């Protein structure tokens, strides 16, 4: 089992945190993980990405050249990473912000109107959790339970009230895959 995941978007969209959550969850499942951020002179509004590896074996290179999955949250990230995905891999597109369509027929593509779905839950801030729900349902890289467990660890105590709505968001994302 080897998942090489790239999560990319604008700075401030939460790509680093989403990556850390996946890495943390993998660690809780006793898998080998690594998390590598792009760290250019980034700022809010610039593009940023995190490379996350979840594997049964010790992680070799933390640098990913052919991702098994890419989560793209903005258009520049779509354009950069869509061609790099390994055949048989997964592309998750935040269609609330990206109108580009992939024409590749050798990967699984799922478009997620994350902002709209988050608003349906009455909490616009859980858009990333919906996408994460899609990701874990599609790839089984980590389990939903581990993500919830990780949220408890990474969120400060005063934010734990947000865990139920995040859980609902993860499940809403997973339902999208079933459909």
């Amino acid at each position, binding site marked *: 089992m080897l998942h090489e995941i790239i999560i990319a978007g604008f700075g401030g969209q939460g790509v680093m945190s989403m990556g*850390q959550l996946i*890495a*943390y969850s993998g*660690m809780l499942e006793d898998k*080998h*993980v*690594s*998390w*590598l*951020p792009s*760290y*250019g*002179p980034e700022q809010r509004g610039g593009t940023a990405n995190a490379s996350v590896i979840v594997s049964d074996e010790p*992680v*070799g*290179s*933390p*640098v990913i*050249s052919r991702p098994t999955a890419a989560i793209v949250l903005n258009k520049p990230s779509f354009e950069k990473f869509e061609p790099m995905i390994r055949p048989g891999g997964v592309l998750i597109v935040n269609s609330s912000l990206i109108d580009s369509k992939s024409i590749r027929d050798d990967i699984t593509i799922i478009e997620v109107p994350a902002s709209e779905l988050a608003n349906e839950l009455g909490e616009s801030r859980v858009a990333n959790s919906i996408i994460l729900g899609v990701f874990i349902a599609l790839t089984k890289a980590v389990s939903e339970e581990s993500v919830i467990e990780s949220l408890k660890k990474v969120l400060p105590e005063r934010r734990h009230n947000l865990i139920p709505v995040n859980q609902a968001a993860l499940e809403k994302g997973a339902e999208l895959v079933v459909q």
Partner: protein
Amino acid sequence: MGKVLMKGNEVIAEAAVHAGCKYLFSYPITPQSELVAYMAKRLPEVGGLFLQAESEVAAINMVYGAASAGVRVMTSSSSPGVSLKQEGISYLVGSELPAVVVNIMRGGPGLGSIQPAQSDYFQATKGGGHGDYQIPVYAPATLQEIVDLMRDAFNLADRYRTPVYILGDGMLGQMMEPVEFKEVVNEELPPKDWATTATRGDGGPKLTNSLFLDPAELEEHNNHLQAKYAKIKEAEVRYESYLLDDADYVIVAYGTVSRIAKNAIKEARNQGIKVGMIRPITLWPFPEQPFIETRDRVKGYLTVEMSAGQMVEDVRLAVEGRKPVFFYGRTGGMVPGQEEILEKIIEMAGGEQ
């Protein structure tokens, strides 16, 4: 304590604390600033002190002072900052003061970039400052290895009374991996009876000094340092051999590049090319033994670095011209991809198998 997910820079800091480091004098610089930030919070918790110096020059001289007092002390920076520290490092060497110097390298020369590089190999392994000297250099490749090497670095510094480098690149500093801090019983070290913590009527004044105006005396001091380096070369070399037993070709790489190379090696083996790797863990002393053992039976070596070709010189010295030594490097903060390395391996092996 189980596994924790941490950033490389934070791991260096926490591992230093576990190794008994109580003092850090540094100035923030990307890509190692998290180390400084972590220590600013952490050191007071263990009764230590972090001080953000007004410059890298000041920081290294604070290290000189603290080391003279016999405490475990460290400074950290990235390439341009480490250049500024060179005078002070030479003084530490001359005065035989133990300290750990961390360099999380970025692209150069000059202000360069903030992206990962390995272009300070010459500076770290061939002196760096003025005078005849060597400094032991540890080059960890994983975050767990940092944990183990930090303790060794402080111990080695104390045992030989020398500064020791931890050399990583921006990728190592910025990435996260799970690490485990195991409680280790520290080895017995010689007492620091030379530390300038005042006399108690028990002998003459104690001085830490690198000034020897009498040339004969300075030559004797140099001979003493050289004898120390001979001992370090004898006892402290470290390296990892990877799939060398049946290898026709050998990659030589250190730090994070060795991890990218490992991926390329696996792929090359899938394609029928028998490749192995020598990964120096100490860059000085450089591991010559694995080259002596392989140079008569393998067909060639390929050194991969994030530099224009620095370690490759030591590889050539160790191979002594018996086999071709190839080089592949990226500079400026560009990271060699595993496909590029694979291509070079195929080229070295004379094309597709």
